[in-house]
């Protein structure tokens, strides 16, 4: 399976991965999260676990179960960690713990290394028997609701290490804190190479004309993604450049605001037939892939963002990306090299005009973009980093290790 990544991932990453797997050969590595399908974590684990096994590590993936009440509570915890005002009562924390305790009866938590993903299964640490346990936080923890993060930290402090996506998400803790950005899988439906026919078929199916430059933003209809701001920027550009705007998002059943924001977007776009507001069904990865490939400029004009992996997805397709300077976006967009970081609607419009009027600049940035993702944001790098974290924990105190 790892052979599929030869000629795609950097040679050095693959070599390091092999060396680490040789060191950790036949050792057991367990991942635990709360969903088998849907979401970036499950998507990556579906690929990561077989790759690890292919390389000789005994990798497993367990999923905790919970009822609606449990997931309502963990959704609130998730929101509070990201800074939304939420109140988690003592009973709710107790229920969170009890569901985890009940899961322990069904889960096999025996492993040399255990990676627990996100807050839902975080209390499992109370049932640790052996091995190195790491808590992997995929969400933006830079400005959490304090009493919620403090409660969660009581569990986190019992782990051997924590893993965050970005340095600014890390906390003041007494355990090791590794910084491991998320990644994209270049072979997945969302990122694999497409034929001209496949791309054309998507454009035809979605009725997107390809006779003019396309500006694209792929994101949920969420105020933090500023879709209305994108429309305003497009309207500023339109005075100078004939282009079309595509906003592509999926309905989010767990987000009651989604429908309201979509309505605002449709109202803003109502008088312009060159704006395409798409509500794609779940699992539209192939269509998103095609849209990213036909776009001239990709936008991710977020006002607040976790990591914003859609940026890397577009960069991987050789597109310059204009993104809000927030969350993990500045890690992916090197200003002026792989795209532009912006701070306002006006700035967004200006950078779009720059790229539309300088196709050579866009092409060069696109080339840089693909290479930058190849070096930094592919799944092989993420697997390498997880194993490096585990191996360094086994060699605690050493900052220099020979493989």
């Amino acid at each position, binding site marked *: 399976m790892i052979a599929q990544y030869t000629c795609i991932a950097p040679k050095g990453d693959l*070599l390091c991965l092999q060396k680490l797997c040789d060191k950790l050969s036949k050792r057991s590595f367990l991942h635990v999260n709360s969903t088998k399908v849907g979401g970036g974590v499950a998507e990556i684990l579906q690929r990561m676990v077989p790759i690890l096994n292919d390389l000789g590590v005994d990798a497993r993936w367990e999923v905790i179960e919970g009822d609606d009440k449990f997931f309502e509570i963990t959704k609130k915890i998730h929101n509070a960690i990201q800074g939304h005002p939420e109140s988690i009562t003592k009973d709710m924390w107790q229920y969170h713990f009890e569901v985890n305790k009940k899961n322990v009866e069904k889960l096999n938590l025996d492993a040399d290394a255990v990676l627990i993903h996100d807050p839902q299964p975080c209390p499992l640490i109370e049932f640790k028997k052996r091995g190195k346990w790491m808590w992997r936080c995929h969400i933006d923890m830079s400005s959490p609701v304090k009493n919620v993060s403090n409660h969660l930290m009581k569990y986190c402090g019992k782990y051997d290490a924590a893993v965050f996506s970005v340095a600014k998400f890390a906390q003041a803790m007494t355990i090791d804190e590794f910084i491991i950005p998320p990644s994209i899988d270049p072979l997945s439906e969302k990122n694999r190479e497409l034929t001209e026919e496949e791309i054309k078929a998507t454009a035809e199916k979605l009725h997107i004309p390809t006779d003019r430059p396309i500006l694209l933003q792929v994101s949920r209809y969420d105020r933090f993604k500023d879709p209305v701001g994108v429309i305003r920027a497009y309207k500023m550009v339109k005075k100078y450049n004939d282009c079309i705007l595509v906003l592509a998002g999926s309905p989010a059943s767990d987000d009651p605001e989604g429908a309201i924001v979509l309505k605002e977007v449709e109202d803003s776009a109502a008088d312009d037939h060159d704006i395409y507001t798409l509500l794609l069904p779940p699992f539209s990865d192939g269509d998103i892939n095609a849209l990213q490939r036909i776009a001239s400029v990709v936008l991710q004009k977020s006002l607040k963002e976790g990591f914003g992996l859609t940026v890397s997805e577009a960069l991987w397709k050789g597109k310059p990306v204009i993104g809000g300077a927030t969350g993990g976006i500045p890690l992916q967009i*090197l200003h002026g090299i792989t795209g532009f970081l912006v701070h306002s609607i006006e700035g967004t419009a200006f950078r779009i005009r720059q790229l539309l009027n300088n196709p050579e600049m866009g092409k060069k940035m696109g080339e840089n973009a693909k290479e930058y993702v190849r070096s930094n944001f592919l799944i092989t790098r993420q697997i390498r980093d997880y194993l*490096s974290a585990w191996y360094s924990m086994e060699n605690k105190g050493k900052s*220099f*290790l020979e493989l």
Partner: protein
Amino acid sequence: MEDTFEPFEFTQSVSILKSIGRKARNLHELTTLIGGVSEESLFYHTYQYFSKGHILEYTNEFAYWAGENLGERILAEHLSNIDPYDFKDIADLRKKLLEVIDEYLKEFPEPREVLPGDDFYFSETVTMVFPVGIRAGNLAEFLMAIKYVDGSSIYHHFYEARRHLGRARDDFSRWFETSLGKKSLAEKISTIDPFMHTIEGIRAHIAEFVEEEVRKDMGVTGGAK
């Protein structure tokens, strides 16, 4: 020469980043933390700055932060002028960083604070080193290898090895001099400015100097292209 000859073994390094959970919002906090963080952390923010690719306006993360996040351009220029390879150890580098910031604070005693989220986040790394399976037994083999070896291997031998492995110079010039007796080639490599080139630029310079030397050894006249 025969007694000391060793082939050049290309290796590569990969670093994993660790947060130390400390951050600075202004220059006063920065100096306090620079004074107290681990040597590994200072190493990461200065010597390992180049592992992320060059941003040529700056030569270390403190300078980048002062210039881009604090908007203290004068200080950024002063910090960028610090050459970490000038110091015999990290304790001396730490002293120099503090001295430069203190001098600046004497002149501008009320530095601004960064916007929320633009703080300086202190980190350190754990570095894994491994052989890439390429060996050069002579200059011609080295020339072939340097053209095709992964860029991160060049980074490792040219930057990382100087300090992390306790060596005073880059691995290439050390090998040219000690194993091949090529002192003048070693000197040429040593003069490549580590702050002014991308990894690919460094590869090109090394290849050019080595090719000139190979041509000279073979008695070929005319410039290398």
